[in-house]
């Protein structure tokens, strides 16, 4: 049922020099949930519209199970989409809304009734079949929209920021529901979002897009541990950056020669490490530092470090005794250091 999806060099431009999407190539395995992540205007919704067939790309190819679907209109793509807004048909009951896809496929009434009921139960909206969309809350409407997309058992499920119109407290419940439904149904799913937390929680793999270009496509952990560039590392929260020169298996920096657990080709590099990974102990890659600031955040204390003129950020447990001005020994564990490929850059921001 679930399909394998391939994009090859998919490009789209709305006008001569306005590229919405540039040379997007990636594959989504059957049953996989991939998040298209990026700031607004990065081309992720354009990509989704191309997958649904609502938009024809100006270049490249989209293949489902190895066959190009570019000439296939949306109604024959078997790709169900949930939009940012619920977009329920206001003149139809909840039941008729959910049954719409079945009706369009000519499923007989008797058969479709049971499927509609099952779909509504999956999103916990059974008992609302006779209501009109106007009588439901935003969260309920979005759940019905999800049921409406699922009822046809699509080979491809496309979700365009379906949580963004919901309140924060509803969002988490809906997020779990999406995950649960996707896993139980095994749908190949593409999920568009600008919220990196949402992407990390939901996705098997994340495709990070900036300015219509794919910057990184990998498992969520990789975005924290092995970011492809400084831009990627910064999009995923606070990171330290440290310029250096790699040679003989170590990287020469202003903090001394640091060893990395992953081999680094010689030359100028930028090392990156998450504040959470910085240790306060003697050992490999350790150096003397002074605490320049502390900020209490409830679950942790973030602090600024100054070591030989290099500014770093680190995090401490909430009950730390360390105060501003204290002298400490800090250590950058070899397994948490990562050398960025885009060469040297300035001091950490």
């Amino acid at each position: 049922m679930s399909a394998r999806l391939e994009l090859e060099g998919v490009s789209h431009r709305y006008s001569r020099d306005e590229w919405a999407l540039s040379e997007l190539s990636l594959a989504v395995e059957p049953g996989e949930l991939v998040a298209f992540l990026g700031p607004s205007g990065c081309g992720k919704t354009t990509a989704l519209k191309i997958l649904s067939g609502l938009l024809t790309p100006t270049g490249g190819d989209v293949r489902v199970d190895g066959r190009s679907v570019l000439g296939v209109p949306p109604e024959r793509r078997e790709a169900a989409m949930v939009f940012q807004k619920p977009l329920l048909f206001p003149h139809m009951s909840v039941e008729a809304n959910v049954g719409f896809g079945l009706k369009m496929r000519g499923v007989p009434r008797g058969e479709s009734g049971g499927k509609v009921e099952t779909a509504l139960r999956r999103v916990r909206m059974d008992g609302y079949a006779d209501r009109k969309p106007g009588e439901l809350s935003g969260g309920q409407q979005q759940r019905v929209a999800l049921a409406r997309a699922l009822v046809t058992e699509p080979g491809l499920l496309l979700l365009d920021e379906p949580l963004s119109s919901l309140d924060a407290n509803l969002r988490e419940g809906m997020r779990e529901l999406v995950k649960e439904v996707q896993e139980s149904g095994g749908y190949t799913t593409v999920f568009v979002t600008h919220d990196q937390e949402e992407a990390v929680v939901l996705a098997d793999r994340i495709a990070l897009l900036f300015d219509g270009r794919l910057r990184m496509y990998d498992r969520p952990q990789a975005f924290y541990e092995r970011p492809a560039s400084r831009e990627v590392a910064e999009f995923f929260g606070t990171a330290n950056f440290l310029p250096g020169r790699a040679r003989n298996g170590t990287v020469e920096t202003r903090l001394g020669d640091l060893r990395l657990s992953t081999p680094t080709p010689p030359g100028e590099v930028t090392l990156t490490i998450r504040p959470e990974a910085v240790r306060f102990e003697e050992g490999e890659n350790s150096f003397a530092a002074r605490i320049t600031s502390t900020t209490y955040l409830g679950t942790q204390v973030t602090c600024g470090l100054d070591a030989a003129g290099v500014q770093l950020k680190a995090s401490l447990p909430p009950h730390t005794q360390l105060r501003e001005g204290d002298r400490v020994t800090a250590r950058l564990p070899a397994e948490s250091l990562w050398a960025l490929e885009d060469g040297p850059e300035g001091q950490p921001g």
Partner: protein
Amino acid sequence: MASPYKKRRAPVGLALVAALVALPLVPILLWTFAGEWRFPDLLPKEWSLRGIQHLTAPGSRVAEAVFTSLGIAVAVTVAAVAVGLPAGMALGTYRFRLKGLVIFLILLPILVPPLASTMGIHLTFIRLGLADTAFGVFLVHLVPTVPYAAIILTSVFADRTGELEEAARTLGASPLRAFVYVTLPEVAPGIAVAALFSFLVSWSQYILTLLIGGGSVVTLPMLLFSAASGSDPVITSSLAVVFALPAVVVLLIALRYLKPSGDQGLPGLGKVS
């Protein structure tokens, strides 16, 4: 919220407006059933059913005129909506070059006094053999009605984003089925408003009917005008009552059924872009 003072005043204002609209109709109703009503009397001295009897009398041709009027008005309504719907859909949905010019040209027939253009149309119709025929009258009634229908439906479609149709497409609906199942039910109130306008404009048309029909196509306004220039207010008033009836019926239907889903009042009277 309005202050209690304002709240109490509002019904008074509404009543005044209602009275202003309704009071002129009272003498018409009185005249319809009047037997003898001379100058200083406030009410008729005698009552009679002469006016009502005239309406149904075979020699008066009222029934025939009502039938002709209804036939033409219904045909005009259907045709105006049939032409106005695609026009409104295109103008309301798509952006294209010279759109302003197209809207201007569509509105031109109601901007130019119909009398002026009808002179030319009359000459053409004589040549085509359409003058003095009901079909010719039907055609000329489209001149003032199509612009109304098109412009009302343009604003109806201008309020639509097309997102519901996109949702329908991804659920397996072809463009045609998306239109039938999603667009049409959504714009139905707008279509109804366009139809009501077209019907009433055609129903009350006098000049165009007179010029093109040349007296051989007798609609209700023809009878009404000739009665009004006569000297029998009873006959004129009874005809006027029949003439006003569809407007009242249509208004009641509109108030009862045309509850728009949003809060923007009657559809078709919103923004036009």
